[in-house]
């Protein structure tokens, strides 16, 4: 396979993996019985989940045609987009049904998936904070903190998404979750993050 074809296949697969779940969610029959704010909140959640596949691929420079430098640059933009998606998701749900979101945020909800979602939200904020403080952190501390936090984000988000009966199709949801987990695991392994958790020899 020539590099050109391989690159086209990768980008095509990525477009399908990211666009498919959004398309399924955007045409869900459940939308008929939801107000615009609730629909936007749900779609923001799907887009946020999509970001979790894109982010490790960018951080690891795995997307063909993008150099490492440009990859990391786009990673920062998508990171801000993920933050916005989380805020729209939680804010939209709050407007739709305040008591349900208050229960979730205080970990007193009847549904366990909301607790996983709230953990994912705080871990996302923390990972973004670590990224924002990067100039003040040592490279080791940055990578340790950001890697550990995003691992929590991806794991808890996948549990959150898997437990929800919502607008995402079962197949597209599981596919996107599996890809996000695999991409995160591969990049963390490639960067040999576990070595940072070992005590440095004096």
């Amino acid at each position: 396979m020539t590099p050109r074809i391989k690159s086209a296949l990768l980008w095509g697969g990525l477009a399908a993996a990211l666009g498919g779940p959004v398309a399924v969610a955007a045409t869900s029959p459940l939308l008929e019985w939801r107000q615009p704010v609730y629909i936007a909140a749900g779609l923001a959640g799907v887009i946020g989940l999509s970001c979790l596949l894109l982010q490790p691929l960018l951080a690891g420079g795995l997307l063909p045609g993008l150099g490492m430098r440009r990859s990391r640059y786009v990673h920062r933009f998508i990171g801000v987009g993920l933050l916005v998606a989380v805020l729209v998701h939680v804010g939209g749900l709050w407007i739709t049904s305040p008591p349900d979101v208050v229960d979730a945020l205080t970990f007193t909800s009847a549904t366990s998936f909301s607790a996983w979602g709230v953990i994912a939200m705080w871990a996302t904020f923390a990972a973004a904070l670590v990224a924002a403080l990067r100039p003040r952190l040592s490279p080791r501390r940055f990578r340790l903190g950001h890697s550990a936090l995003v691992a929590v984000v991806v794991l808890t988000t996948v549990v959150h998404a898997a437990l929800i009966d919502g607008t995402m199709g079962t197949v597209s949801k599981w596919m996107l979750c599996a890809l996000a987990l695999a991409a995160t695991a591969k990049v963390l392994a490639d960067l040999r993050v576990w070595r940072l958790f070992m005590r440095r020899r004096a």
Partner: protein
Amino acid sequence: MTFDHPNRRTVLAGAGAMILTAANGLIVPARAQGVAPTPSMRGGANNYRPGAPIVESIGGGGFLMTGTVRRAGDGAPLPNQRIQIWAHTTEGHERDPQSHGATLTDANGQFQMDMPQIVPAFGQAHGHLAYDSGDFQTVFLRPVMASARDTSLQADFVLQPA
């Protein structure tokens, strides 16, 4: 094996057995009465609107909410008790006034409400029910449908005097 000098193994085995027994529910507190009152469920009171009117049906109907109301202790059916029902359905959000309605139990303590199909909202297809008339302690229930395709849902109340 003697228990005069418990070693780590006997202590661990004993503690493990105690935890297993407690987790099994084999030890239950002594109850003076037979039928225990229903506790309110987490999130049961969300989007509650006090004073929903007694209606023949909520909206166009097609979905059946059923249940029973009994007295704690002897389990006697309680007739003429007002039960309030609301849910996210094909005809409105939980917060919408038209999604709320109340009904009374019959002579056998049973109630039923014809209402629009409940659809998944906030991650689960679920309904809300309340007993809030004051003669007995207030109870809020939030039953979850096993499948979003179900066309009925049941919720039972056991009330204790206020």
